[in-house]
């Protein structure tokens, strides 16, 4: 349960067209992540699904029901905000049970449901605290708890982890993925952190200025980016994009090679230059080189590297690992 379909949805703020025309299917039970650069309309799409914004055109369908003109509360969705949006004057228990209180559910039933939810999120000991007595991660869990309580079909998350520090974020990623497995509801998750997108999603939607660039599984997007935009956006460090002589050799305008597919070679080849910067990450090493005729090229080398800044370097790559683009789109034809 919890399939969301967007049909030719449009959104304008006054004269500003934020979503020109967007169609998307979010399969039931999926963990769909919306990614894209800042201002591309991710939050807007989420808010359209939630009903916090009215679509200028098109339809939004949740489980075969046209909800385009339904109130947010009638859409069987729940939303978790980046700012948590917890009520400071309510205890954790009251925050979690808020929806049930509004629905005038009996005190006993509220208490029962709140303790169930608290158990899932390990909040049992914190129920009587006020939000300001909680850490960031705990607050985030309370916000999620409030979303779970009414058993929504679709969860909407708007950058829920961006206020947390790196290690807590890693932990919460795992917890959210487990939660998804446990409650099996559809989750739509907005982020501009592509690590979150890659690790949590079973479907990623890449957006650019309100237009979908590509929809697919994380590995689809990584291995077969449909466009130069996706190729650049997915993957870290970014894919190397080269043009000119080397691209012409491959019959395309732009040639992309991921850093891990760049190899350091002993002999002089097509890409020769000097090392500008080295980042040692332990498991592998990133080498940023100034290559004659091209921009900086990044290479990812397994293990340590016995070279230093300023050394001459030669790079090569296997032709089976190249991505070819013309006019911004992927060329799939053979060459």
């Amino acid at each position, binding site marked *: 349960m919890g399939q969301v379909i967007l049909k030719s949805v449009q959104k304008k703020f006054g004269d500003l067209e934020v979503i020109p025309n967007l169609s998307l299917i979010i399969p039931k039970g999926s963990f769909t992540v919306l990614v894209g650069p800042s201002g591309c309309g991710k939050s807007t799409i989420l808010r359209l699904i*939630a*009903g*916090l914004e009215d679509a200028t055109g098109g339809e939004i369908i949740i489980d075969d029901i046209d909800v385009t003109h339904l*109130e*947010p*509360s*009638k859409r069987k*969705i*729940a*939303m978790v*905000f980046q*700012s948590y*949006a917890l*009520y*400071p*004057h*309510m205890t954790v228990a009251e925050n979690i049970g*808020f*929806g049930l*209180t*509004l*629905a005038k559910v009996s005190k006993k039933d509220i208490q029962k449901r709140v303790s169930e939810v608290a158990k899932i999120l390990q909040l049992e000991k914190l129920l009587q605290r006020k939000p300001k007595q909680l850490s960031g991660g705990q607050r985030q869990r309370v916000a999620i708890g*409030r979303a779970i309580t*009414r058993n929504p079909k679709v969860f909407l998350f708007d950058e829920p982890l961006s206020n947390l520090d790196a290690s807590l974020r890693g932990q919460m990623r795992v917890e959210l993925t487990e939660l998804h497995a446990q409650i099996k509801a559809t989750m739509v998750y907005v982020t501009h952190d592509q690590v979150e997108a890659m690790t949590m999603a079973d479907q990623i939607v890449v957006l650019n200025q309100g237009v979908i660039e590509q929809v697919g599984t994380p590995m689809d997007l990584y291995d077969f980016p449909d466009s130069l935009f996706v190729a650049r956006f997915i993957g870290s460090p970014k894919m190397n994009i080269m043009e000119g002589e080397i691209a012409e050799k491959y019959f395309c305008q732009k040639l992309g090679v991921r850093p891990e597919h760049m190899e350091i070679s002993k002999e002089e080849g097509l890409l020769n230059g000097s090392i500008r910067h080295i980042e040692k990450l332990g498991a592998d090493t990133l080498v940023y080189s100034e290559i004659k005729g091209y921009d900086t090229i990044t290479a990812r080398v397994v293990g340590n590297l016995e070279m230093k800044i300023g050394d001459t370097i030669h790079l090569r790559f296997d032709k089976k690992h190249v991505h070819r683009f013309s006019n911004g789109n992927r060329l799939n034809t053979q060459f």
Partner: protein
Amino acid sequence: MALPACLLVFTFLILPFFMAFGLSLTNQRLVSPNPTEFVGLDNFKKMLGVSFLIIEPEMDEAGHIKLDNEGNPIYPRVRNFTRNQEDFPQFYKKREWFQLGLQDGKVLVVLSQDVVFLKALANTMLFALVVCPVQAGLALFLALLINQPLRGINIFRTIYFAPVVISMVVVSMLWRFIYDGQNGLLNTLMQMFSFGLFEPIDWLGNTSTALPAIMAMSVWQGVGFHMVIWLSGLQTIPLSHYEVARIEGATRWQTFRYVTWPSLRNTAILVMVIITMQAFTLYPQIQVMTRGGPLDSTQSLVFQAVIRGYEKQDISGGSAISVILFLLVLSISLFQRYLTREKN
């Protein structure tokens, strides 16, 4: 850094208070060649002292209660007990404040030497009691109305705020025309809307309507100021708090009750304290509109303090009223603080 502020507070707040307190224990006059004498709590006793007198209806020889033309029992005049009466020294020169009917036709008369002060005290309390909740509530209502991202909403904000920037003295003068007993705006409007059925009322000349009329005007004048305070409180509430409520299915009333109102706690305390203090210092309206009349129905503490201290040159009497006012406001503020304390 804090020195200038402390100095100002000391010279204009603390010093005058202690001076007022000191003066209230003397018989200090504004100008008098006679030396000032210490009189202890005499001023306060005079103002606050009350005594009780029970009077019975007059009987004729046969033991029947005498009735007047309308069939009501006739009572002896209170004046018979309070003036030139050696039998009742405790009532000497006291005057009736109010009466309470007891059983068997007896009447309890509350007497005081300073009825005007007691009426001023009662009026001021009544004024605060009515104006505080009404003004605060109305201001909140307006703030909720105009806290919307509608086009042109600033015009309304300006309109509601406009009376605040006009001096209360000017406002009072204008409202005297509105309340005029014959061709005032209010009477004219009422007559228009009732198709001439409405009998013009002399709003400020009537003991029963004068104080309510002043209350209404005061609420109108001050409501914009408190609306702005409420508005500033409202704007600190994050939009997402309302959005969660929308998603969770809150009705308008539930949104107000669970989200808006609790978030306005501190604002509410501020508004209540300010309104209470303003209400207790009721003065310019009275000075301009009624000067305490008709029949003391609009006397107020500050007005009496000014009348006595300045016009009647009785500095000690005026000071004593100021001291009582101070203690009254202080205790109400403390009580409010107690009621609104953080319960944990």
